[in-house]
Each structure stands twice: as structure tokens, then as C-alpha cells.
């Protein structure tokens, strides 16, 4: 009964609004998109056919559905913001948007959404824009399956791929971002989901996350970004099943956590990063079922962190599994698999009978005297590590996993 009512309502509303199809193209009714937008009514669908459209700044100020056929090109001539969306429930689909203005104060974008809700931006190609997609004061917007690419060299000369600011309930899904400053940037964005995106070769962060509570990012792939992924000043973040790979360098981290609390990190893979997870001022986090493999440092936990629990993770082939800069230990390790563990399991309960101290003395030395890294794996240092294992003096006693696993977890 209710369904019939809805269907009736749908027909009725369609009839009322009289949604039209408007075509733009060389041999179509309209030759410019601007004209088409001006002549159409809210609710109309504008079909843009193949071609290059250099129309400066296009503003969508009413509820329209813009659909590109065979990726028509909207070109900003390096001067303009290409597409400005200022109406709720607008759809933009199937365009190739390129050459926005650059490096000016008003942050020119490929597509910018101003204070709108329900906007959908899907299946577009954004090429060589200053900012890719920019959402400010947006609600319930969807950014899906876009391919965003820029060719930034310096941080100051390029904007972010997907930039979201003061927004709520966004869905960022299945996008592919490369060569921007930050792949995805969230500031004051709440209740949102970032899912199945690939962000790589960006100059700064693959994902940059600040003051954005109650968000989740799931099954994303971050690779070879200048500084990895940064999550800062935020509560209640869920990070599931993401991959963080090959973030190498000076201050590069697979995942940097700064002033984060009450969050949950699970099922992630940290592979070949200089540092897998770097934690600073981080409290009450649970990290479990993650894999840390072939990183320089699996985790760096600064002394400002407390009440974090690290359990049931795999640490495999890392140069250092864990390091810290302090002597107090306020975090717990439990039931992880450490490939450097040499203990035994006499009672056959699959956890080692001897506790494991994941902090090697040399990692402490390197923390204090970084150039000492040059001596890594020398006979001298091996002796030092061995003697420390027998009689700990430099490493804190409590830094210990009491139930180290003998076999790696199938993650």
C-alpha cells in the first residue's frame, strides 16, 4: 500500500516539475553549457556531448543533473574555477575537467561545492587542477569513482585531491587520486566514510585528517605518498582494512596519529614504510589484527601516549618492531606475533612461555643518537643487543608482551 503511494507520488512530482532533457553540443540545441544552464529549470537533465568547452567559470545555481557523454572536456584555461555547485541535489557525472586556475588565494578547483546537500559527483576525470574536488559546508554529499590526477612538484604549488571542510555525512568512495598535495583532506568533517579509495604519489599525505570526529575509513590503499597518512586532533576514528605502503623518508609514516583518542585500528597492513604507525599524544586506542611488515620501525610510540592497547598483530621483518623516546610505559602489548621472538612453548598453548621485549637497545640508542644507525647490524651492536637481552639496563622493563604468539596470525 505504502509502495503504491510512493510510486504515485513519484509520478505526480515528475509530472509537476516537468523535468526536461536539455542537450549541449556542436549540433545540439545549445552550443554552450552556460546557456543551457541559464535556460533550464530546476530538475532538468543537461546532456553534454563530446567536445571541448572553454566557458570560464560555470556556476550551477539550481538543482540540475549534468551528464557528460563520452567525457566532454571542461577546460578552465588555468584561470578559472571550472565548475561551482551551489544548489542542493545537483549531480555531476561523466566529465573531464581540466586546467583550473592555480595557486591563487581563493583556491580554484576543478569542482567546488558550496553549502549544499545531497550533491553527487561521480565518474569524472579531473586532470591537472589546483584542487580537485572541494566541498565546503556540504552535507550528505557523495564523491564516487572519480579519477583525480595532478602533477604537483612542490607543496605550495598544488592543492588537494578531495578537500572537505566543515562538512557532515559525506561518502568518499572508489576514487583514485595521485599527484596532489594531500590525496584526501578532511578538516572539521564528521560522520563520514572514506571507502575503497586509492591515493598514491601525493606530495604530502595520502589522507590528511584533522578535527574530524566520528569518521571511518575503510579498505583504502595509500601508497608512496610523501608523508603517508596523518590523522590528527580527532576522536572516534575507525580505521579498517587499509593498506599503507612504501611511505619513505624523513618524516614519512604509514600512519601518523597525533592527539587521537578513543579510536580503533584494525585489519590494516603496514608494508615497507619508514615507520608503520607513529603515535604522539594518543590515548585509548585499540590496535588489533594489523600486520606490520618490512617497515623500518613497526611502531613508534612516543612517551606522550597512554592507555593504548596493541594486541594480536603480526610484526614481521621489520628493522625495529617498536621504539619509544621515553622510559615510562603506559601502553600494553599482548598476544602479538613477533618474528624476532626466540622463546619456546612447553605447555603447547601457542603462546610463548617467556615474555618478549620488543624494544631493542639499539633502537633506544638510535632514538637518542640518530647517526648511530650507521652501525646497525654490526658485530658491536649485535653484542650490545645480546647483552641487553640478558641484563636489561637501558630499556624499560615494562615494555613487554607477556603472551607472544609462536605463529603468525592469518591476517
Amino acid at each position, binding site marked *: 500500500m505504502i509502495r503504491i503511494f510512493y510510486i504515485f507520488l513519484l509520478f505526480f512530482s515528475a509530472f509537476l516539475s516537468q523535468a526536461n532533457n536539455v542537450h549541449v553540443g556542436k549540433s545540439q540545441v545549445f552550443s554552450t553549457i552556460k546557456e543551457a544552464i541559464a535556460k533550464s529549470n530546476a530538475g532538468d537533465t543537461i546532456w553534454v556531448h563530446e567536445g571541448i568547452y572553454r566557458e570560464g567559470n560555470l556556476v550551477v545555481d539550481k538543482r540540475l543533473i549534468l551528464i557528460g557523454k563520452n567525457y566532454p572536456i571542461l577546460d578552465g584555461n588555468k584561470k578559472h574555477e571550472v565548475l561551482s555547485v551551489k544548489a542542493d541535489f545537483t549531480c555531476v557525472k561523466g566529465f573531464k575537467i581540466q586546467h583550473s586556475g592555480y595557486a591563487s588565494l581563493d583556491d580554484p578547483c576543478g569542482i567546488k561545492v558550496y553549502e549544499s546537500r545531497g550533491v553527487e559527483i561521480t565518474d569524472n576525470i579531473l586532470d591537472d587542477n589546483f584542487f580537485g574536488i572541494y566541498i565546503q559546508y556540504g552535507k550528505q554529499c557523495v564523491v564516487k569513482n572519480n579519477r583525480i590526477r595532478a602533477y604537483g612538484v612542490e607543496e605550495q604549488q598544488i592543492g588537494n585531491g578531495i578537500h572537505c571542510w566543515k562538512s557532515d555525512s559525506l561518502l568518499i568512495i572508489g576514487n583514485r587520486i595521485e599527484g596532489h598535495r594531500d590525496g584526501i583532506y578532511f578538516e572539521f568533517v564528521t560522520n563520514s566514510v572514506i571507502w575503497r579509495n586509492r591515493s598514491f604519489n601525493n606530495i604530502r599525505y595520502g589522507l590528511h585528517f584533522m578535527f574530524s570526529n566520528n569518521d571511518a575509513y575503510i579498505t583504502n590503499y595509500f601508497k608512496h605518498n610523501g608523508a603517508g597518512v596523518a590523522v590528527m586532533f580527532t576522536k572516534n576514528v575507525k580505521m579498517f582494512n587499509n593498506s599503507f605502503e612504501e611511505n619513505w*623518508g624523513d618524516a614519512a609514516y604509514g600512519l601518523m596519529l597525533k592527539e587521537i583518542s578513543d579510536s580503533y585500528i584494525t585489519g590494516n597492513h603496514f608494508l*615497507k614504510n619508514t*615507520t608503520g604507525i607513529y603515535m604522539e599524544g594518543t590515548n585509548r586506542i585499540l590496535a588489533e589484527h594489523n600486520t606490520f611488515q618490512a*617497515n*623500518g620501525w613497526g611502531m613508534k610510540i612516543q612517551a606522550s601516549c597512554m592507555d593504548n592497547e596493541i594486541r594480536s598483530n603480526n610484526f614481521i621483518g621489520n*628493522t625495529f618492531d617498536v621504539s619509544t623516546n621515553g622510559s615510562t610505559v603506559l601502553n600494553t602489548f599482548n598476544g602479538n606475533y613477533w*618474528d624476532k621472538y626466540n622463546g619456546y612453548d612447553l605447555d603447547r598453548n601457542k603462546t610463548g612461555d617467556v615474555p618478549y621485549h620488543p624494544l631493542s637497545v639499539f633502537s633506544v640508542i638510535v632514538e637518542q643518537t640518530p647517526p648511530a644507525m650507521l*652501525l646497525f647490524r654490526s658485530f658491536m*651492536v649485535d*653484542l650490545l643487543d645480546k647483552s641487553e637481552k640478558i641484563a636489561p639496563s637501558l630499556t624499560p622493563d615494562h615494555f613487554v608482551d607477556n603472551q607472544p604468539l609462536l605463529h603468525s596470525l592469518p591476517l
Partner: protein
Amino acid sequence: MNRIIKFVILDILKNKVVVVYTFILAALSWSVFALEDNSTKGLLTLLNVVLLIVPLVSVIFSTIYLYNSSEFIELLLSQPVKRSKIWFSLFIGLSLSLLFAFFVGAGIPILIYAPPDVSLMMLVMGIIISTVFVSIAFLGSVFTRDKAKGIGIAILLWLFFALLFDGLLLFLLFQFSDYPIEKVVVFISACNPIDLARIMILLHLDVSAMMGYTGAVFKDYFGSRSGSVVVLLILTVWVFLPYAISLSKFKKKDL
């Protein structure tokens, strides 16, 4: 091939020490790779083999061999043979036998089990380190006629390069940790062939860590193409300089 080299190599093979060395290396390498489920641990064991056992065996075996072949040298000297040719033949003979032992013993399992870039670097460094320590043995043994003293010098030299040098470097690092001494440290460590070999292997073995902050500095020095060339040059100097000095000494030596 030079006839004397042939005799030297035949003689070394008859000696059986090199054969045993080959077998030990082989047993060690195959077993570490077979026992460990990830090859990284096996590689670490082999790193120690390359950095400790290879130089130790090279320097001591060469020293003993040189002292034991004093008769051979004397015999040859009364024959129409250049002194430099005798010395060179001994050097090549010893180096080739030890390289062969290293390659057959450790090289093959490394090539099979390790990732290609690491294995290649390890192999190259093992070969260079073998030769460097043969060269050092030549230098050590030309200075004294006393065999016991000569072996003592060889062991001391090995101990110095394998352990004491790094100890001193670590001490230096602690003492001057407040100063920007990275460059100095890099420079000093370049003076030790074992350290150089270790760092070169490390750059491939611990890529992620060496990309870290100071690691990046070292990567800049050692890991860049020009850096690698410089390292190879220094190591080449390490191969030839001790030998060259020993040769000029040997040419003037009274027998």
C-alpha cells in the same frame, strides 16, 4: 694462465682447508635458509658470515699460507722469475681460491633464496671483502718473518676492523652526540671496508629503515649512484693499496 698461479691454486686445493671452508659455508647457508621460514632471518645470518667469518678466514688462511710458502717463494726466487710475478701469483691464487669457496659455499644459496638486489649486493660485497682481507694478510705478513707474530697481527687486524673500529665509532658518537657529526661519522666509517660492505648491504636489506631520517642522509651518501661508485672505488683501493704496499716491501725484502 700464469703457470705460477696454477701451481698456487693446485697447492691450495691440496691443502683442503679451502675445501672444508667451502663445505662449512655451504652447510651454514643452506641450513639457515632451509630452517627459517622467512628469508630475512637467513639473510641476517649470512650478513654476519660475510662480515665476520669471510674476513677472518680470508686473513688468517692467507697469512698462514704465505708463511708456509716461504720455501716455495725461495725456490722460485732462485729461478728466472720476477719478484712481483711471484707475489702477484700468490695474491691471485689465494684470492681466486677463497672467492671460489665463497661463491660455491654461500653464493649459490644466497642467489637462490634471497631477493635479487640484496643477494647481488651480498655476493659482490662478500667477494670484495674476501679480496680485501687477502690483501691485508699480504701486508701483515710482509712485515715480520715470525709466523706466530704474523698470525697475531692478522687476528688483531681482523678484530680491529670487525669489532674495535665500530666500538670506537660508537664511543665517538656518544661523546659528540650534541654536534652535527653525521658527515664525520660517514667519513670515518668509509675507512673500514667491513663497515662499508655492511652499509651497502643494509641499504638493500633494510630499505625502509635506511630511508628514515638519518638513514636518508646515509642513503644520500652511500645509496645514490655516485655514492655507490665512490664506495666501490674505496673498496677497490682497499683491495689494491695493502697489496701494493706489501709488494713494494716484498721487492726489497731479503730472503
